[in-house]
């Protein structure tokens, strides 16, 4: 019978490999998120109309710029697998870290499930267009998740190099579509009459409601921090990779809104499963359709790939710290990956990918992400208070503190209200889940945790303690 002491002692000797550079960090961040341009963001248009979709795109961009600024400072200083989880452990405390670990696992696993659903939906759509309607989506969903889990199992360098290539293709596809439309490759011209004729079908409330799915443009960029223990130079690579990622996404998001809003009626766009592919269909160009089909498939695979990478690192970190059974804290003796965590999360992703509607899965992911961003606000304030700038060496110091924190808190509060408008039940259900899980951790699970091991950074005692 295994127990914690014997289980934990052996796996901790093996470390994750430090093989990644800034380009891999960029690929991890953008790879997870770029799919948000290929699907999901357009529900924001459905929630508030064309203008609301654009405002949501930029407001969410501002929110994520704050997230990237804050994250770059804290992660470049707390360079450990688990990203925000490790931050919470050192700055707020074990229970917060457990919750942040769950936010990450839930957000990424749900995003992975949403990606797999999209792969199945797209293949079904294309099969229908070629006269083979009625395709069974489930085998493709299972195959996508299993293949990517296998890739992650075999090694992080190969996984993220694969991501680098397919993300570059998916991003290029968006740019090619944009230039092709600009140079007249579309049979149907861009038309923005809905912007003037029906700018805000739900009024200003629609703009707030649209922020719910506006987050989907960028959700997961904070995942760059998960690779902190596998990056050669965290203090340099993580801020560069993250900030380059958010800039890439801001450009891609704006281009995406412009093309889709100009080519697709907003009523259709607001509920479309694959909006960029649909925009390519409207152009009437077969080669653009093929390109955007490839782009959509690559974006979803890259995102699911990054999600498996990140969720497994968070789960692994919690296992290593005994917040979860320490069996999960093992590193593969040959591939040096958190293989048990990778395998364990596969069936969970499948449960959601095969059994829940896309908008529910997306909402579940967004809510977990939103809770994580809310945590970042007070985490940043506590970090600066407990260790002022001159007390520890930081890899990066973000400017204008506490302005990004205040903006982030205001935008998070607005986003909670946006989710509440229509998805209030899920929000309450999710809060119940996290409250029960927190009580379970504090009153049951924490007895198995070694106290002193929870603080591993070479920092002085925090001020005020």
């Amino acid at each position, binding site marked *: 019978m295994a127990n914690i002491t014997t289980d934990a002692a052996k796996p901790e000797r093996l470390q994750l490999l430090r093989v990644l550079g800034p380009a891999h960090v960029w690929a991890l961040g953008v790879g997870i998120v770029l799919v948000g341009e290929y699907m999901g963001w357009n529900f924001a248009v459905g929630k508030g109309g064309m203008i609301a979709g654009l405002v949501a795109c930029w407001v969410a961009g501002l929110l994520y710029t704050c997230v990237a600024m804050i994250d770059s400072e804290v992660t470049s200083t707390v360079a450990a697998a688990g990203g925000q989880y490790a931050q919470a452990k050192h700055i707020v405390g074990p229970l917060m870290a457990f919750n942040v670990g769950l936010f990450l696992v839930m957000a990424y696993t749900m995003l992975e499930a949403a990606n797999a659903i999209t792969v199945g939906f797209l293949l079904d759509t294309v099969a229908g267009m070629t006269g083979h309607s009625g395709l069974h989506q489930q085998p493709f969903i299972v195959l996508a998740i299993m293949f990517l889990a296998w890739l992650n199992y075999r090694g992080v360098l190969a996984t993220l190099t694969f991501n680098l290539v397919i993300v570059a293709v998916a991003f290029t596809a968006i740019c090619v579509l944009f230039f092709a439309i600009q140079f007249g490759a579309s049979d149907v011209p861009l*038309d923005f009459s809905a912007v003037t004729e029906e700018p805000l079908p739900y009024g200003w409330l629609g703009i707030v409601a649209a922020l719910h799915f506006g987050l989907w443009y960028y959700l997961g960029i904070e995942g760059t921090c998960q690779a902190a223990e596998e990056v050669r130079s965290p203090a340099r690579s993580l801020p560069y990779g993250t900030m380059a990622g958010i800039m890439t996404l801001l450009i891609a998001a704006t281009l995406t809104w412009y093309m889709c809003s100009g080519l697709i009626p907003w009523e259709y766009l607001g509920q479309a499963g694959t909006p960029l592919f649909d925009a390519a269909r409207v152009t009437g160009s077969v080669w653009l359709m093929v390109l955007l089909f490839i782009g959509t498939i690559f974006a979803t695979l890259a995102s699911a790939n990054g999600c498996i990478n990140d969720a497994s690192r968070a789960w692994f970190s919690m296992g290593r710290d005994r917040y979860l059974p320490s069996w999960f804290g093992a590193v593969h003796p040959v591939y040096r990956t958190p293989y048990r965590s990778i395998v364990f999360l596969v069936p969970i992703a499948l449960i959601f990918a095969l059994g829940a509607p896309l908008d529910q899965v997306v909402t579940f992911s967004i809510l977990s992400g939103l809770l994580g961003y809310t945590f970042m606000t007070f985490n940043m304030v506590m970090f600066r208070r407990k260790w002022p700038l001159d007390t520890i060496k930081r890899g990066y110091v973000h400017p204008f503190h506490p302005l990004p924190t205040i903006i982030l808190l205001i935008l998070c509060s607005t986003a909670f209200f946006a989710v509440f408008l229509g998805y209030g039940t899920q929000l309450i259900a999710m809060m119940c889940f996290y409250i029960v899980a*927190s009580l379970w951790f504090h009153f049951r699970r924490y007895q198995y945790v070694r106290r002193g091991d929870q603080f591993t950074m070479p920092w002085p005692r925090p001020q005020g303690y």
Partner: protein
Amino acid sequence: MAYEPKKQGLAAQIFDVVTLLVLTVGALYVPLYMGLAGAAKTPNPIENPTWEALGQNAAEQRQWEALGITDPASVNDMITARFDYSFSWAALIIMIVSVVGYFVLVVRLSDREYREVLDERFGSKRKGG
């Protein structure tokens, strides 16, 4: 003296993981099965729908055709459907209390655990602590 955690058997480890799994799956599927999940749009279809009656100009009609939709009646529901954003203030207050209460609970309990961690890592500052 450093805290020595309890040893946990395999069965108890499995029980802990299953507990988390049940909570996770329940949080998504219970609202779904109870029919409380999601914001459904309510269609307001019009009689004898034409593209013009549905508010679609010539350019938009070409876009619909390019998407393979030539019959306006087939998208009557899609075009006329709208969300209902009315809400109850009581539900909003419950939402605010649950989110704020959750973070207060977690931060306070975390702080208690954090002090134990620091005492073990850096040595206790308090007598008897």
